[in-house]
C-alpha cells in the first residue's frame, strides 16, 4: 500500500506566502535589481513596511540589499539571491499544482 502524496499546499514557503513578502518576491523575480523607491511604488506599501519585510527576506538570504551613494543621496536597491530565486520558483510551482486541481 503506497503512502498518499502530500498536498502541494504543504510545499508552500510560509515566509514567502505573506502578502507583502509575496509581492516583494514577485516584483524582484523579473528584475536583476530594483531601486527601493521603484519597489515601494510597484507593491504600494510604506517605506517602513517595505524596510521591515526586506530585512526579514534578507535575513532568510532570499534577498540581497545593496546600499550606495549617488552624490550625497543614499541609494538602496534590492535583488533576489540564487536561493531566493529557487525558493520563489518552487513556491510558484506549488501554486501551479494547486491551481491545476
Amino acid at each position, binding site marked *: 500500500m503506497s503512502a498518499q502524496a502530500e498536498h502541494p499546499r504543504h510545499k508552500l514557503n510560509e515566509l514567502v506566502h505573506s502578502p507583502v513578502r509575496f509581492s516583494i518576491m514577485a516584483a524582484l523575480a523579473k*528584475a536583476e535589481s530594483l531601486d527601493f523607491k521603484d519597489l515601494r511604488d510597484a507593491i504600494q506599501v510604506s517605506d517602513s513596511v517595505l524596510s521591515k519585510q526586506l530585512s526579514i527576506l534578507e535575513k532568510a538570504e532570499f534577498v540581497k540589499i545593496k546600499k550606495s551613494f549617488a552624490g550625497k543621496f543614499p541609494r538602496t536597491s534590492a535583488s533576489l539571491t540564487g536561493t531566493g530565486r529557487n525558493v520563489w520558483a518552487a513556491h510558484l510551482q506549488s501554486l501551479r499544482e494547486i*491551481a491545476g486541481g
Partner: protein
Amino acid sequence: MSAAEARELLARADSLGASSINAAAWPVAVMFTSLAIMGSLLMIGMHIVLVGGYGAALLACSVGAWGAITASVWPMFQRSTKVGFTKRFLTSLLGYFALYVVALVVGAYFFRDGNLWFYIPAAIALAAIGLAAAFRELRA
C-alpha cells in the same frame, strides 16, 4: 487554499513582476538610440570633413571615446534593471563600439578621401546595431 486562490496569486505575481520593471528598459533604450544617431551622423560627418581635409578621424575618435566613457559610467547609477541586464548591456555595448572602431579604422585607413559607398553602409550598420540593442532591452 483553493485552486481559484492559487490562480489569483499566480496572476498577481505575473502582474507585479511585469509592472515593477515597466519603466526600467526606457533609459537604456534611449541611450542606445542616442548612440545609433551619434554614430551614424559621425560617419556621414566624417565623409564630409575628410573631403575637406579637416582631420575628421580625430573628431570621431574623441567623440567615440566620450560616448564610450559616458555609456559605461551611466548604468552604474541605474538601480532598477530587468533580469539579465548586465549581460545584455555589456554585449550590446561591446558590439556597438567594436563596430564603431572597425568602421573608424577602415574609414581612416582605406577611405581617407571619403567614399560614400563605405560611409553610408557604415552609418546604416551603426544605426542598426544601436536600434537593435534598444529593442533588445525593451523586449527583454
